[in-house]
């Protein structure tokens, strides 16, 4: 137990040392944290991913975009090993998924509308469950409690630590779920629609928390429906359509009326043959 703690603290020191140099390197030179190659997966009999390539390198912030049903949620769930791949391969931190055990390096925010369950739970209890990635079957120590508090401070919810999650608004519950992922002090943050159903004020708080994580060198992969307040943070956008990657590069800029929330969806100038890439950003 003690030895494990020491080893883990050494690990974090190492990553802190390597991160400043990582910042000066070209992104394409850094080691890949996620490398998904030719990934195929199906839900039931319906193929959802049809040969998806996705590489995320250390320190990058990558947004996965696409319309409903394009496979973006399945893609991130495959990355965390929750959807079995019927083809292709997945490496996390350079280790094949089958042999990957260092789950505390990953903070996962699943797509949820609520943090509540059938029995009341306090904010502290929900966020503490994220710390289990480090404590596993053992007992939490003082360091674990401090980490839980730090994670809640990052999302601005430390003053609600004793409250029941049922008493929180949807946006606040989403902040608690992100704190749960941050409690393990991960190097890679994977989030599935963290902004869904979150009002603008809470979105700004989340964007601030994410900015701090990115500045500290955390790698981020997130599924988004629209870029919103996170847009300035995002280095690269990967757009999925019908289970295939149709765009991998700088995030598409929303222009003109499209920059407004609630815009309509008409493309009068597009020729019939040049159908615009549906990013799902606009729908």
């Amino acid at each position, binding site marked *: 137990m003690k030895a494990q703690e020491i080893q883990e603290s050494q690990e974090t020191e190492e990553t802190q040392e390597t991160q400043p140099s990582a910042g000066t390197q070209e992104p394409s030179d850094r080691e890949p944290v996620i490398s998904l190659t030719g990934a195929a997966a199906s839900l039931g009999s319906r193929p959802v991913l049809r040969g998806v390539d996705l590489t995320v390198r250390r320190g990058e912030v990558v947004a996965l975009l696409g319309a409903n049903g394009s496979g973006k949620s399945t893609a991130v769930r495959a990355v965390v090993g929750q959807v079995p791949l019927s083809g292709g391969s997945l490496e996390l931190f350079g280790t094949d998924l089958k042999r990957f055990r260092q789950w505390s390096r990953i903070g996962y925010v699943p797509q949820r509308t609520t943090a509540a*369950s*059938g*029995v*009341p*739970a306090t904010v502290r209890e929900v966020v503490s469950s994220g710390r*289990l990635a480090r404590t596993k079957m053992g007992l939490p120590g003082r360091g674990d409690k401090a980490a839980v508090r730090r994670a809640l401070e990052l999302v601005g919810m430390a003053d609600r630590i004793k409250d029941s999650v049922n008493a929180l608004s949807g946006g606040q519950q989403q902040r608690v779920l992100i704190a749960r992922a941050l409690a393990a002090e991960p190097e890679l943050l994977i989030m599935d629609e963290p902004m869904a159903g979150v009002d603008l004020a809470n979105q700004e708080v989340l964007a601030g928390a994410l900015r701090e994580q990115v500045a500290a060198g955390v790698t981020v992969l997130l599924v988004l429906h629209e870029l919103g307040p996170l847009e300035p943070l995002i280095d690269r956008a990967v757009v999925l359509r019908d289970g295939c990657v149709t765009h991998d590069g700088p995030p598409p800029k929303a222009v003109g*009326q499209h920059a407004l929330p609630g815009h309509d969806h008409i493309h009068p100038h597009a020729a019939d043959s040049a159908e615009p890439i549906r990013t799902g950003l606009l729908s």
Partner: protein
Amino acid sequence: MLEILNYDFMQRALIAATLVGITAPAIGTYLVQRRQAIMGDGIGHVAMTGVALGFLMNTSPVWMATVVAILGAVGMEVVRSRGRTSGDVALAMLFYGGMAGGVMIINLSPGNSTASFNTYLFGSITTVSPEDVTAICVLAAFVVAITIGLRRQLFAVCQDEEFARVTGLPVRLLNLLIAVTAAVTVTVAMRIVGLLLVSAMMAIPVAAAQRVTRGFVTTLALAMTIGVTVSLTGTAATYYVDAPSGAAIVLLAVAVFLVLALLAAPLARRRARSAAAAQNAEALGSLECTLPPAREAADNVKV
């Protein structure tokens, strides 16, 4: 009142009642958390086959029921984890197959076993044997060790299973452990509460506790307190009234739920009011709702 402690059968019944009061709400909290409160009922039905097999083979019905209930619970967990849409049909077959099996086997077994079989369905304080007490103590120790010792891990699994898997916890093992613990609890509870009412002791104290609690551990602790209270009171009551102990205990639990539900409504209102007042005082400096000044209409949007 205290003269009931002079009887050996009553001492045994009260020991068993205490353990039922502790264990059933303890595992029940996790089942309610994952909205699976009905699982206890299903295991109870399956355990009927085990009890009947015990009579037929002339072995201890408690241990036989434990074995069959564990097999049934593991089967239910397998169906649940597959997450098929036809899962509820599979569960129905397991539940009622187990019940029908119990009734069939008990009628095949020799002697007057049907009457004693009834005591397993609704509980009876006069039939707890010294061997039953030993078995109940051993099984209850297992249930308490799991539900208290692994509460953080089980909480995480029942709160958000997918998240728990990504933290690297052995989720499949923990799920099986919950199923086995629930099965063991059913056999702990069946002498006192009865197989058909055991699910009530898993769910009602938890439902009552969460009327007034805000956290998981406090809910767990209060549910166990309520469980022990109603279990002991109900058992003692059936010393005076000739009725199945399970019925008395469950009715008491329902009464506690109603009282707490009535108490909780004004409590929650007061909490909400003070929270809202604190928030408003912070944000607006007044308790009144004020409409923000209307925004000017702008027409600077170009397509």
